[in-house]
């Protein structure tokens, strides 16, 4: 018991101590953004978590909730985001789907691609768009949950930097990708392992752009303490180029009657760029089948991204 607590605290401490450092540039952007309010609040440490949105983090962890989740997000001044996910069981397998996109703008003078995650909090007169859609399947084999997902991800950005206000032509770059994952109970929680974004580089603006292929390993556990429940989510992510990121989050919840409860969450992670703050926070309210999650992530210049997820089971 003490061991798991220490592990949880360490997992939280690692990303806080990590210095922000630019990751290897990769895209499309939607693959790097938290897809739900809960994930945003928990430092995007979702590889061992289990809810509708697990389909984005680890296909082995999708579970048939017979419900769905819908997230709306606002980034900076005019950025908007949307994601939805659901899963259902059919025979021995569970199938899930998800879609997520971010629609925001940036100054036309910005030339860099791939898009840095912090760009979503800015604004400008050049529209940018990033999306990912996926389907996944999961089953249990010899005590292990195993899953696979097929993804399509795309960025649409201005073709080139321009100061002209008359014509901005779009440029599209997309990739077909695969995720593989597994999970298994470990100690008093669940460990998850996912190899994400397996695929070929894609071409954008005539250049080959790498996809963020990464291996994510994480562990989650839920405990009780008096009238409260609390849980840890931890994750270590290693990109193909050697960039390593640790992430962790904790949530504490309290219910006063069956089916009703509130929860507070906080998380931290090593960010992709120095323009992102490492911490996230949020809360949720559960009323029987309805769960409302709010999550916030922070950027330099006091910019924030707000996400509100509505889950219905």
């Amino acid at each position, binding site marked *: 018991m003490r061991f798991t607590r220490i592990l949880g605290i360490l997992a939280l401490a690692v990303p806080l101590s990590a210095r922000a450092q630019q990751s290897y540039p990769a895209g499309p952007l939607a693959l790097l953004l938290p897809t739900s309010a809960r994930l945003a609040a928990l430092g995007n440490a979702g590889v061992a978590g289990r809810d509708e949105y697990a389909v984005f983090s680890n296909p082995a962890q999708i579970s048939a909730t017979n419900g769905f989740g819908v997230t709306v997000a606002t980034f900076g001044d005019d950025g908007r985001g949307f994601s939805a996910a659901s899963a259902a069981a059919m025979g021995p397998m569970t199938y899930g789907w998800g879609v997520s996109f971010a629609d925001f703008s940036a100054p036309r003078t910005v030339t860099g691609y791939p898009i840095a995650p912090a760009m979503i909090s800015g604004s400008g007169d050049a529209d940018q768009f990033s999306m990912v859609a996926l389907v996944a399947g999961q089953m249990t084999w010899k005590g292990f949950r195993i899953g696979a997902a097929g993804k399509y991800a795309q960025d649409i950005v201005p073709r080139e930097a321009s100061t002209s206000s008359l014509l901005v032509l779009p440029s599209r770059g997309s990739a077909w990708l695969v995720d593989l994952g597994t999970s298994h109970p470990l100690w008093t929680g669940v460990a998850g392992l996912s190899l994400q974004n397996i695929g070929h580089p894609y071409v954008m603006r005539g250049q080959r752009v790498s996809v963020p292929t990464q291996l994510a390993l994480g562990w989650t556990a839920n405990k009780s303490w008096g009238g409260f429940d609390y849980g840890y989510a931890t994750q270590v992510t290693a990109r193909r180029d050697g960039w390593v990121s640790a992430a962790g989050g904790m949530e504490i919840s309290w219910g*006063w009657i069956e089916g009703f409860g509130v929860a507070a969450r906080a998380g931290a992670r090593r960010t992709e760029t120095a323009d992102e703050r490492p911490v996230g926070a949020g809360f949720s309210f559960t*009323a029987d089948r309805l769960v409302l999650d709010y999550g916030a992530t922070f950027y330099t210049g006091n910019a924030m991204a707000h996400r509100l997820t509505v889950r219905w089971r």
Partner: protein
Amino acid sequence: MPRPVPRAALVMTALLTAACSQALKFSKDDSATVLSYQTITAPNPSLPGAFKVRTMYYGSGTDKQRKEFKDSVTYKTKPVDVSPYATIAPAQAADRKKYWGFDLKAAPINGRVWYPDGAGPFPLVLVVHGNHNPEDYSDPGYDYLGKLLASRGFILASLDENWINGALRGENDGRAWMMLKHLESWKRFNDSTAGPMSHKVDLTRIALMGHSRGGEAAAVAAAFNTLKYYPDDAKQKFSFNFAIKSVVAIAPVDAQYMPTSQYTPLENVNYLLLHGSHDGDVATAVGMRQYERLRFTDGQPHFKSMFFMYRANHGQWNTVWQNKDNGPRSGRTLDLRTLVPIEDQRTEGKLVISAFLEATLNGKSEYLPMFRDHRTAGHWFPKTMYTTRFQESGYRAVAEYEGDIDLASGAPGVTIDSDSLASWKENVIPFRGRGTDDQRTNAAWIGWNNRIAGPDTLKMGRPASYTLTLSDSLVKAWKITANGAVYLSIAPTKEKPSPRALPRDTTTRDTSKAAVAARAKATADSIKKVPKPPKPNPAADTLPIDFTVELVDADGHVARMPLTRYAPVRRPLEVRLYRRAGRDEQRFQNLFEYVPQTFVLPLADFATSTPDFKPERLKSIRLRFDQTFAGTIILDDVGINPAIDPKYVAVPVRP
């Protein structure tokens, strides 16, 4: 920046949340009247006796988790291999072995004992807990019973079977077998030449007691006790044959273990069943099935009894489990306000269990009447409502409604007839839970409404009746005496049949034109005058049920007694377990459990009231529905004891 949450949204959230919890609802408590009697004059068995209480432990002496069974054992016991009777998935088995330090092949025989400080020999009672969090040890939870029973001259051993608790299924034969292995150890303790138990245990007077899964295990152990082989595998040979006289089942489960895929049969032991109406774990009183299955076939005096305690839960009979029927967070799901105080529930447990053991192991027959009619000990019972069942080995079935589909026949030699009933059928008694599970006993469902349909709501017809008639040969064979008694088991329902249709009199019909026109006008007028019938609301039918029991002898003499003289007759007791509004309706098909109340009516009472009535020439038992004008009852276990032991019917209550 996010907009601040509007105050209205917070108010709405608070209202929504508040609206989801339901208000307290109970059946009207009649305990002030029902428990106002006390005709038993013997000492209260729930109070401590004269013996000083001592304690000891026995066990493996190597237990990794339980200090008392490692360092403090008076007797060391050898672990046994329980694996043929219980299985655990390999992954789970590894975890358990790591925690406990042993696996099912080396199950410890651990027990904590309360015993009287005296020469003995004393009767032995084993109690085993049921399923619970394995790390929250359940065996100390019967401390209150141990102290009481030891002070009254019983040895109580509370068995440690925590190591078989947790997420296991189908292991109740293992729990039962362990009880018998404990008895083998007790034989060794008793046979030893030294030690506190040396020749202090009376192994001819043994009772097994269990709670929850342990309640089923106690009955299974009593069934295993007389077998030569484990029913599911003859490779496992049995040779126990202990003198198990009594079994106590506290809120037991049933059929989690089914020997040879059958419900566990049980014979020739005294049996006591306790169950709480507000049991948040074993929410249906499934122990009634074991109660029904118990048969007395050896001609020896035995009895069985059930106490269904209103507002009692599952765990308050164990001081560790308390009111956490749904685990540590029970307060979120279960409405704990509905429960009787913990002390009251334990007092009831102490009272009933102690009286039962005194009666069946110590021969203290002065406590027998409280099992026939609990009002004889009304002052001893905590103030709530009890439904009780009772049957002793002299009972002969007149009608149990099993085995045939003929409504007009009862047991062999018994015919059944009715008059003016609104409904009459035989059907199984359901449990309140959803699904197809039921009490596995059929009963007669009898409905009546003596009111004649029409605008005159006071117009009554002849009282309906239901009659069971015994053949002459049956009466002769049974040799019914004036000391006999009639048994009835009755559960009123909430159903109220519609008023009777007025019978058409066609013999004096005037067919003249004028008469026909007059009748048409009268009919039209009456239709105008008839008020709209109220919306059917069975739950609102709360009139107390009562009727007259008539016994008719072969000479036609009729003796009558009101049913309520012999026990309270109540509408089903309303049970709401959950805090969330609508959750009970979602989970249960009925918000009550049908628990038939047993009525034992001594024939001598009828003979006294009607001197011409000759019990020896009893011909018919008639239920005349003349007190409550409408209602429906479930009738089961109609029987006769031709000559009931007077100790059972002593000190009657005379309301």
